[in-house]
């Protein structure tokens, strides 16, 4: 496919800090090669702003390959844009047409504070993991890695859940700003594996409690999270977590 150049109008959310009200501002993005990634297009706009003596748009990005997911914004109302299973950095401009207007805003959720322009604080996701998203094992004492066989399909299911990159698109997509998909992916990854089973019940409860306490909303089965997840994490994980959670409520003394 040969690249061509297109012209775009950007409506970008600008916000000076958490206390600022924020507003959309318009920018022209001219001569954008369709081979560029979305973030490279923003780079071009920022270079121009800088040379004009204006402040460039603050946006996070790092690996520009998907997995780090320091980036993430809402493009035309969709977290990471409209391409399925794609992080923003992997969205290429060939998916836009000459003359398009593109609205770009930060991920919005009660639990995510906007720090500046498109940058948000997703620290709440780390706090959910701290509440139990781990197996309690110290370095040094582990048995031989092959001592417990794990059926391939189980390992694959755990891997499907572990593919979550913690970007927060599920939260941004959810009408209730719930972090259910994120939380359940970790709960079910660890609950599926023999190593994670001993703490499975306690983990489900402490992580869900943390999620609630941090201001994330409830899950009302809207399924927007699954649709927007760049790693296509399945809502089966939510069902698995609910199962763990129920089991725990009946049988454990953690409650």
């Amino acid at each position, binding site marked *: 496919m040969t690249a061509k150049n297109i012209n775009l109008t950007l409506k970008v959310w600008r916000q000076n800090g958490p206390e600022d009200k924020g507003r959309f501002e318009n920018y022209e993005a001219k001569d954008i090669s369709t081979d560029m990634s979305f973030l*490279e297009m923003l780079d071009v706009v920022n270079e121009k702003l800088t040379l004009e003596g204006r402040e460039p748009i603050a946006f996070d990005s790092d690996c520009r390959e998907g997995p780090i997911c320091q980036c993430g914004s809402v493009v035309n109302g969709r977290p990471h844009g409209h391409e399925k299973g794609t992080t923003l950095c992997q969205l290429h401009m060939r998916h836009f047409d000459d003359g398009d207007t593109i609205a770009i805003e930060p991920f919005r959720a009660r639990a995510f504070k906007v720090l500046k322009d498109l940058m948000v604080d997703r620290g709440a996701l780390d706090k959910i993991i701290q509440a139990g998203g781990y197996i309690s094992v110290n370095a040094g004492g582990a048995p031989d890695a092959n001592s417990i066989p794990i059926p391939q399909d189980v390992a694959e299911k755990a891997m499907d859940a572990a593919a979550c990159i913690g970007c927060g698109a599920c939260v941004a997509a959810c009408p209730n700003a719930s972090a259910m998909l994120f939380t359940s992916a970790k709960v079910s990854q660890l609950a599926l594996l023999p190593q994670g089973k001993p703490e499975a019940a306690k983990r489900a409860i402490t992580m869900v409690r943390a999620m609630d306490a941090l201001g994330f909303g409830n899950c009302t089965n809207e399924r927007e999270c699954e649709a927007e997840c760049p790693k296509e994490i399945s809502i089966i994980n939510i069902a698995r977590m609910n199962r763990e959670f129920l089991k725990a409520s009946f049988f454990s003394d953690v409650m």
Partner: protein
Amino acid sequence: MKLDAKIPAGPIQDKWDKHRFELKLVNPANKRKFEIIVVGTGLAGGAAAATMAELGYNVKNFCIQDSPRRAHSIAAQGGINAAKNYQNDGDSIWRLFYDTVKGGDFRAREANVYRLAQVSRNIIDQGVAQGIPFAREYGGQLANRSFGGAQVSRTFYARGQTGQQLLLGAYSSLSRQVAAGKVKMYPRQEMLDVVLVNGKARGIVTRNLVSGEIEKHAAHAVVLATGGYGNVFFLSTNAMNCNVNAAFRAYRRGAFFGNPCYTQIHPTCIPVHGTYQSKLTLMSESLRNDGRVWVPKNPGDKRAPGDIPESERFYYLEEKYPSFGNLVPRDVASRNAKEQCDAGRGVGETGLAVYLDFADAIKRDGEDVIGRKYGNLFQMYEKITAQDPYKVPMMIYPAVHYTMGGLWVDYNLMTTVPGLFATGECNFSDHGANRLGASALMQGLADGYFVIPYTIGGYLASESIENVTTDHPAFKDSLSYVNDRINKLLAVNGKRTVDDFHRQLGQIMWDYCGMARNNEGLDKAKGMIQELRAEFWENVIVPGETNDVNQSLEKAGRVADFMEFAELMVTDARHRQESCGGHFNEGFQTGESEALRDDENFCYAAAWESKGLDAEPELHREPLTFEHVKLTQRSYK
């Protein structure tokens, strides 16, 4: 100052055991009296912070990203080596040791490499215990694949997300320690200086990337796990925020820099396609297990790949290296790709690409099997290039990927500054002049989980470390140095952007200090870097203010350090009058265009001591002795 690598005496198999026994221990009750700063939350930093906290130390852990889980390690795709010999194909600690020393072109320290091979086994055990979903066989056993530079299958993997899964493992252990109150996390913080008190590392100065505030942090010891400096080339496979500033500031404060010119150019990356390009994307080396590398036999052949008959294709790696074929080490594969393109056989619009073709593998195994192995890589390739590798061969070209050089450390991973340690890619220790695939993850985790937690105890137990707070004048000095530099950057108010300068610096480095180097080019590059640096300080434009989020300022600080560091790289490359691994000086090659070492004169690690910006650095040599692996001309034929 004389370099002392502190390699324990005795047979190589026993060195690490013996050393661990001889290291003084900090008694459990005393561990909680020590504060340790760890800069970096990648495999090397995250594992170190978590493990030291498990042992009882109080850890402060810093990173640039908004979460420790977003360190660059997460981008690693292909796999991690370990001498498990699960495949019963003849692997052993000894073989991994041997392959690594040979792969590094005999420029690494034997004792370190042996220890690395030893603890490699524990890493996989630890990972499985943490719940890392490594790939498995039907019977439930762990699966392996082969990687370049090895003839055994010792690479463990988790789809194409091995780094992600390993890092999330370390991050989960770290999160557990954060919850336990033993680790305090400082995300979105950038270390801008290391603070020495009475010659010992006692803290750091950072910039809070949200508020812009310059902060002081004191500790009993400092561990740098800040990754590699590949971004000195501007375009590389490294994440955008990878930098040299922490390591370079340490260098300016007295830590010697080891082998800065050893950089790895990875053979399988998506070729450059435009001047706006911000980074290069790696296609995992594992693809060379099934993909065949070729170019048209006739220079300038512009036909579509499908129209070029077998007889007119040149499978140059298979032909030149029959026993390793497409699985030769990276430096060899990269140099050969360049050679073919230089000879006019390159493909694609720019002529700077070669084919990596899966047609035969798909014919043999079916799309299903190939898809299961490489599906997500193929998908990533298609997203970027809009071409389907199931149907047309991939186009690849070498790109800067990894830096073997780094802070010089002794066997304890301590730099020449007492109390300042370096782990992971940020040190120079284990890969010599070339790293084998799947060995960086191994080294980062070996350092973090299994080496530094012991050796730091030895340091803390044997030194008397007086109490120091951030009120000490050394912190004030450092603070004002950092503030001055920031104010200077903001005050230039010139006409060229930071990226513009960075791109130009990268081009100089790629042209003259990249895949192939020569004396004339290196001499020229040195002058060009000095001129560019001078212009940078007169003509850079950094908008915004210091007491706010200011990404231009962050980048400017990093590029300012790259501008100084680039010169050190060139100096090192120019002084090493031989070729070895990733350092290929065209003046030194065998009749078959392979790297020609000079063991007589250059069998040493170069450790550079800073003498300040305006003076030449001083070279110190750590002689390398090879008692177990015979020095030979590397051959993969």
